[in-house]
């Protein structure tokens, strides 16, 4: 008895709560409503996990039992595993320097941890911009995995001086050094950004960059950005940040050490990675587009076979269909200049009238079914008869 009673009670209480809170604006109702929305989103996420496991299970069973067309299931599972591997583990993606990550503003910027060029040793970080609008930066607090952040704590009222060395490559890209402050929630403080004058560094020698700022009230962290703007290559090395009476505050300013757990960072970091993007652009997009494009052929064939003026109603349908088809394309306007307006009239009035009737029917049906579920009259969703 409880197996049916408890779900029915939950359904009744939830249904009544949602109904009442919609019409009665009260903070308790609002809070409960927000909580329910969060639950729905969590359930939605679980539903995706369930869908993925179901896909795996169904196809695996088909292969195991060698059912009809089991070969397609092999292709499905292999594709599934490849996408998960490439999307989550990101093979081939380079290791980052410890405490630094890439804050990329545009897709035309790439960042590298360079092991061949350096000022005092053979390591530095490089940014490569491939368009005039390219913009990006290496930063100690970047948009990726927090475990690889090189946190610099800041005290309000304290003066901080940051220096870095930059070297140019081919192109006209400009380098700049930026210092900004964040509060203890990690939010950027207003008017707290100081940027050095952008320069095009020489390819032969290292150009010093320097920026100084006083931490404003509420500052808890400092963020350093090594910025590139434009087309070309720029190397950065020997980043130092100092406050009076303190040694350099920068983690791994010479870029000699690598991040501690690149595998974990790739797994937990957001974003899709270049491999996933490549597979999406070059496999999924053409396949999906091809499948959808096939519809045009089948629709043409179906129209030829079924659009017959067999009855007066079918004749009206046929004439209207031809008018709407012609009204949708410029050639229709060339045949008769008012064709688009006639087509639009059919869309706006007769079609809407019919559609509205259907919508009212569906809405009334939904309300009736919802009431039956809330009141426990409709029980088929609980299973059994």
């Amino acid at each position, binding site marked *: 008895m409880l197996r049916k009673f408890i779900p029915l009670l939950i359904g009744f209480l939830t249904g009544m709560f949602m109904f009442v809170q919609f019409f009665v604006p009260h903070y308790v109702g609002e809070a409960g409503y927000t909580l329910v929305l969060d639950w729905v989103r969590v359930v939605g996420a679980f539903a995706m996990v369930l869908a993925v496991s179901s896909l795996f299970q169904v196809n695996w069973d088909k292969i195991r039992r060698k059912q009809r067309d089991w070969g397609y299931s092999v292709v499905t599972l292999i594709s599934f595993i490849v996408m998960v591997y490439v999307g989550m583990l990101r093979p081939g993606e380079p290791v980052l320097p410890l405490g630094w990550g890439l804050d990329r503003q545009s897709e035309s910027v790439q960042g590298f941890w360079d092991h061949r060029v350096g000022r005092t040793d053979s390591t530095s970080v490089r940014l490569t911009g491939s368009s005039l609008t390219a913009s990006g930066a290496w930063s100690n607090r970047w948009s990726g995995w927090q475990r690889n952040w090189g946190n610099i704590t800041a005290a309000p009222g304290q003066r901080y001086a940051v220096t870095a060395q930059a070297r140019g490559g081919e192109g006209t890209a400009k380098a700049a050094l930026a210092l900004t402050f964040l509060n203890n929630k990690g939010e950027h403080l207003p008017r707290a950004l100081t940027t050095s004058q952008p320069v095009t560094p020489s390819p032969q020698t290292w150009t010093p960059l320097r920026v100084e700022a006083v931490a404003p009230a509420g500052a808890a962290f400092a963020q350093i950005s090594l910025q590139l703007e434009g087309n070309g290559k720029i190397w950065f090395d020997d980043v130092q940040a100092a406050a009076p009476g303190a040694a350099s505050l920068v983690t791994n300013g010479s870029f000699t050490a690598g991040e501690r757990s690149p595998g974990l960072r790739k797994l937990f970091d957001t974003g899709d990675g270049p491999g996933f993007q490549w597979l999406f652009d070059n496999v999924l997009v053409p396949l999906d587009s091809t499948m959808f494009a096939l519809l045009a052929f089948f629709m043409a064939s179906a129209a030829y076979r079924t659009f017959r003026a067999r009855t007066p109603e079918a004749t009206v349908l046929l004439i209207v269909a031809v008018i709407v088809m012609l009204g949708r394309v410029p050639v229709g306007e060339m045949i008769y200049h008012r064709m688009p307006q006639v087509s639009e009239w059919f869309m706006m009035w007769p079609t*809407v009238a019919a*559609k509205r009737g259907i919508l009212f029917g569906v809405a009334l049906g939904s309300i009736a079914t919802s009431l039956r579920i809330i009141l426990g009259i409709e029980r088929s969703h609980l299973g059994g008869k």
Partner: protein
Amino acid sequence: MQTLARLLTIDRRWIFLFIGLAVLVPFLTGLKFLQGTPTPATLAVFNYIDQLPPGSVVAIGFDYGPAGMPEMHPMAMAIIRQCFQRHLRVVALTIHPQGPLMAEAAFNRVRGDYKAKYGQDYVNLGFKPGGQAVILGIGSGIRNVYPTDMRGTPLSALPVMRGVRTYDDIAILIDLATGNAPGAWIAFGHQRFKVKMAIGITAVMATDFYVYYQTGQLVGILNGMRGAAEYENLVKHPDVGVLGMSSQSVAHLVIIVFVLLGNIGYFASRAHRRKQGGMA
């Protein structure tokens, strides 16, 4: 009469061949038909965005995948183009799992022409599962649903999101969709939170949504590839939408010709049968 009746049995491979040629030839030859006056539904969306003051927020729902690209992508690019021309902030979000990459592709195609910067002029918030719950959640606070953007940057760190908290801060939400997402956005986003809305949909879906346009619940509708082509012309940047309309023009003509042939064959065959019946 018997010869005409044979029109009833054209091998469908001929139809496939003609449709294939109808689509391909205009693309390969660059054949263009002059686009006439835009439909009022398209013009309404353009005019609404055009009168927004600079800095206003235009949210675009990228609720489509690669299958919908031919129709939806030209619309997306034309709308983004207009927003960048008018210095409006663009916020992309989606309840379709493939939507975030569609948004990335659209921004990548357009942003270079206007030197638009990620985080300052536009942002991609990405996908959240939950459909209606996501739409309703934005009404309570966009940061509750999207604490970070697609790349993991907190929204508070993005200048483009400054002052954007709920639907009240969004000037217009344009949902570009191939499924039933616009229905949910209209029912829960517009009706409950009164956000101004427009939609861009595939031509086959249009009949479902003119109802909402006629009642004023939607500012306007971009209807299929025609809507995309009209919008491209309105932003004075004819692109793949305009080119696609030539293919669609010829393809529609081919389908109409085959439908006519089928009907000629049908009437000829009926007349032939009657004649034979009369003789018997």
